[in-house]
Every structure is written in structure tokens, then in C-alpha cells.
């Protein structure tokens, strides 16, 4: 299980803009995410971490090269197919502004389920389970405004979990949090990775956050600096 590739980037090139203003982000990048991994993606600002994560999640498309998900190419999917694929396989957590302000925590978590044909009762059960797992049972009916940053982020994770996708993509999920809230969120992510076999790719600037991952990858100037190593501490935990 540990060795099956979930994502494979093959010779991926990506640039933004055109003409003189063109900025090349990646050039023939190879990258593999395996089943059950918890990857911390690090690197200086502007090096393309978010872009990479967005390509994994099918939000950005590569200019050249292929992206495979469990062996199947997703880079040639039509937008509608990609939407379905994403709803089915990928959960997203962002740095901030994760939640819809007009909805309660429970309603926010419910959103991905509205794209399914699950019954109301089943949806309710899943929302409760997800919120419970994130230690938020008490906050189900609060709107984001009435939640702390850490709680908001945990609601976002609950939403990423609720449709039970095998992959979580997190873009600086602790970027806005203090140390204690960070650790809570990271502990939960690690638990999801270890106990529920979620494959997680997490962008972070925080070396402390990286210690929760099973592998840390350093991006700079469009490529990985060193051959990505297994995180010794996290590996021991796994």
C-alpha cells in the first residue's frame, strides 16, 4: 500500500503570463506522492508551492507533461470531469478564508456532500462524525465568525474529510494560527494520516509543522533541492 503512487508528475512544465512577462515556475518537474504519505512541501515564497498543490488538485493545468492520479492521467480531463474527479478524490484545506461566512460550521462541512446523493440522515451522520473527529461537536451551529482561527481550520479539515476522499491537499493550514492551535491542527492531520490512511500533501513555511509529516520536500527555483528524504522523526512514528 505504502508504495502505490497516488500522484505522479511527469516532466511537468508550468509558466504564468505570456510574452516578455512570462514567468516560468516549473521546468520538467518529476514528483511522486505515494499512498499513505504525509508530505510537507517547503520552500521560499513564490517558488511555486501553491501552484504545485493546485496542479495536484486539478485546479491548475501543466503547460507540458502529465499528471497521473493512481495511474490515470487527469491533465487531459475536461473541466466538468475534473470537477467530479476532485469532488470524489481530493479534499482541500487552505491557509485562510476556508469557510463560507454565511453558513454554520455544520453547513460548511455539509457542502461537499450536497454534490452526492446521500440521504439527509446519512449526511447528518457524516457531518457529526467529521466534526466529532476534529473535536468540534460543540461548535456545529456556530458561524465562522464565532469560531477561533484554529477552530475554523479544523472545520475546514472536517469538510475536507466528510466526503471521505483518500487525499488531503493543505495549503499552509497553520499559516494563520498561533503555536498551540497549529499543534492541534497538525496533530489532527497526523492522526488522519496514521489512523485513517489519508494521503496528505501540506504546504508549510513552518519547520515545526514539517516535523509532523512523514516526508519533507524542499522546492526552490522550480525544482526539488535534494532527493526528498523520509522524515526520520515522523517515520519513527508511522
Amino acid at each position: 500500500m505504502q508504495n502505490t503512487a497516488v500522484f505522479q508528475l511527469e516532466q511537468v512544465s508550468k509558466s504564468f503570463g505570456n510574452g516578455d512577462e512570462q514567468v516560468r515556475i516549473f521546468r520538467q518537474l518529476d514528483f511522486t506522492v505515494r499512498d499513505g504519505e504525509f508530505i510537507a512541501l517547503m520552500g521560499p515564497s513564490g517558488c511555486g508551492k501553491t501552484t504545485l498543490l493546485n496542479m495536484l488538485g486539478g485546479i491548475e493545468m501543466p503547460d507540458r507533461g502529465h499528471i497521473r492520479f493512481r495511474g490515470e492521467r487527469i491533465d487531459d480531463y475536461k473541466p466538468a470531469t475534473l470537477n467530479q474527479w476532485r469532488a470524489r478524490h481530493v479534499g482541500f484545506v487552505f491557509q485562510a478564508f476556508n469557510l463560507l461566512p454565511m453558513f454554520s460550521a455544520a453547513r460548511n462541512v455539509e457542502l461537499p456532500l450536497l454534490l452526492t446523493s446521500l440521504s439527509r440522515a446519512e449526511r447528518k451522520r457524516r457531518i457529526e462524525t467529521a466534526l466529532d473527529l476534529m473535536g468540534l461537536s460543540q461548535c456545529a451551529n456556530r458561524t465562522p465568525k464565532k469560531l477561533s482561527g484554529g477552530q475554523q481550520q479544523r472545520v475546514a479539515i472536517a469538510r475536507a474529510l466528510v466526503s471521505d476522499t483518500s487525499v488531503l491537499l493543505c495549503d499552509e493550514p497553520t499559516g494563520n494560527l498561533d503555536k498551540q492551535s497549529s499543534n492541534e491542527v497538525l496533530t489532527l492531520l497526523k492522526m488522519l494520516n496514521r489512523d485513517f490512511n489519508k494521503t496528505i500533501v501540506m504546504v508549510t513555511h513552518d519547520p515545526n509543522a514539517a516535523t509532523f509529516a512523514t516526508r519533507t520536500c524542499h522546492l526552490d527555483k522550480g525544482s526539488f533541492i535534494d532527493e526528498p528524504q523520509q522524515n526520520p522523526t515522523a517515520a519513527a512514528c508511522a
Partner: protein
Amino acid sequence: MQHHSSHSTLDRSLAGECLAMARMSLANIWLSKWSSVCIIGCIVLMVAVQATFLSMAEGFQSSMDSAGSDSIAVLVDKQSQSESSSQVSREQVELLRHAKVLGSNQLFSPEFRMSVSVLGREDNRKMNVALRGLTPAGFALREGYKIVQGRAPQAGRFELIVGDSLARRVKDTTLGSRLNLGGQDWTIVGHFQLQNAVFETEFWADLAMVQAGYKRENQYQSIRIGHLDASGLAQLRQFVQADSRLALDVLTEQELFREQIKDTTNVILYLGWPLAAILGIGALVGILNIMFISLEARFNSLRIIGLLGFSVTSIRFGIIFETVLLSCIGALLGIGVITLLLDGAAAWSVTGGIDSEVYNIKVGVSTLGQTLGFSLFLGLLGGLLPAWKGLNKESNHV
């Protein structure tokens, strides 16, 4: 939570997505109350104006449809196209009374009309209405004339009867009440109705008494002659034209009435519609502005919705649903307010001189349909544009 791998449950239905987006719009309407209130306000304002003039037009139209007879001739002096400013002399009246063109079965009604000032029943506001002096032939000429309370005025007495429509709006018009008009005390002895309530707007009394009350014994305003067929009317016209002493215009009652209300009709046509159109454009611009700002503020929410896999179609549906719902609320509110304020109320409009004509404002199906339709159209436009322009730039990935 352990991998249910429930892929089969993830069959998407656009209807389900749209429902979810509609729910989001509802929540958003509540969350961004002020934007919502502004949009509703825009529509209420527009609808209020539109419904006002439409209901006026509707009431007007329904009053108009049966107003005025075309077999009754009204003679007024050549200078004035309306009754109130017309002057007809006793000599002219006598010339016509004995004219050969008129058969013996025709009713001949010289009339004297004064503008009198009375107080509104509710607001105590001064208003000008007509006091008309009539001979028995004059009463008999009126279509559907009947006394519904009390009795007819007796000759030789300062007695008044009052039109039912007017009685409801003017103070001191119950039977037995006394009204001082032009320095003379009059007693209300009856209420009358006519076939068309539009004409129930006058005080009627015995001709000689009105002339005496105002010390104008030899003065008349108009002469009504009925009933005439087309050839009778033509003969009368010829006769009047042939005699230089009769510098009078011969109109049918219908023509006279149309002439009098022409101004009102024009106001409705030339002021009402453009006003509604301008307000409509204003409302649309308002809605568009608010929606673009509101979408800007929702940028992140919409992005997240897109990332979660909701289709652009459903997101657009949500936006349009929001504006259409808001304009629907606005329209109903606007119509509701107008109905409360105006339905059944009498519109007083100054026509043909200084007298007020009355007709009932009617908030009917036509008014309702047109305003609701117009508002929904604006709501649709106000949603469509932002839904397309607002989403395009940010959702190239969805």
C-alpha cells in the same frame, strides 16, 4: 470514516447543486442584509411608482370605458372647450328651447354650474367640486340616476343632493347636514348614484335656486339635449352654426368628457411610463452595482464552492436566484404598499379647469402582472450580468 469508498453515491445532479446554491443565496441574503435591503429598496421604489401610475391608468380606463353618453349633446360657448369656464346666456337658452330641430320628446336641460369649496372628510383638506343646478329634465337625462338615500331636492328650496362617491370623501354630507356654499346655507336631502361613478362627484340642486344663491339669475354654463341619434345631432349642429347668436360648440357628452380628461391621460402616458423606465434603469444600475460589490465580497466563498466541485452553472443559478428572489420580494412589497395606500381610493385630478374629477384607483391583475413582470425582468438582468461577468474572471479553472 474508514474508507467507505462510496463512489457510487457521488452521482451529481445539477438540480441538487442548484438547490444547494439557492440555499446559499438565501443564507447570503440574510447575511448581507444591507445589500439585500438596498436591492429590495430599489425595486420597491420603482414598483411603487410604476404601480401607482399603472393602477391609476387601470382605474382610469375602467372608469372611462363607460363614461359619457354619445346620444346627449352638450352645448358650451365657443371659447371654452370645457363646461366650467363656459357661459351661456338666457337668450341663447330660449333660442334653443324653441328650436324646430328639437322634437317634443327630447329632454332640454339648461345647466348652471359653480365651483364650490368643501372640506375633505378625512384630511380636512380644501377641495373644489361642482355644484350643479338642474331642471327636472336635467335629472332625467342622467344615465342610471337614482336617489339611494333621502329624496330629490324640491324646487324653491335650498336643498342639495350629493353624489355617492363625493359623499364618502367630503365632510358634512349626511342627510340633514347643512353646508354653507357661497354664503348660502344648503341642506343635504339625498344621495344619488349614477350608472358611472365617475360622475357622482357633484352636488346637485334645483337650477333656479343655484342661480339665486349666486345671484346669477340669467346665467348658464351649458345646455344638455338628449337623446339624439346621429342625424339629430348633425341637424342640431347645422342649426347652431346657422344662427350667429348661437356662438356655441355642440359636443356629445362623451366628447366633452374625453376632452376634459385628455390632460390626465396624457400625464399617465407621457409622464408615467418614462418615469417608470428611468426608475427601472436606475433600479437595474443599483442592483448591478450592489451585486458586483457583493460578488467581490464573496469572491473567496465562490472560489471555495468551485473548488469543492460545484459547477459554474449552479453558481450562476444561485446568483440569479438571489436577485430574482430579492426583486420578487421588492415587487410584492411595493405592490402591497401601493395597494394599502391607494386601492379603492379616489384619485383626484384637476381636469378641465379647477374642478376635481374622481375615479377609483384600481390595483388589478393588469397592474400586478405588469409590475411583477417588470421587476422579475430587472432581477433577472441584474443577476445575469454579474453571474457571467463576475464569474468569468475568477473561475477559469471551474
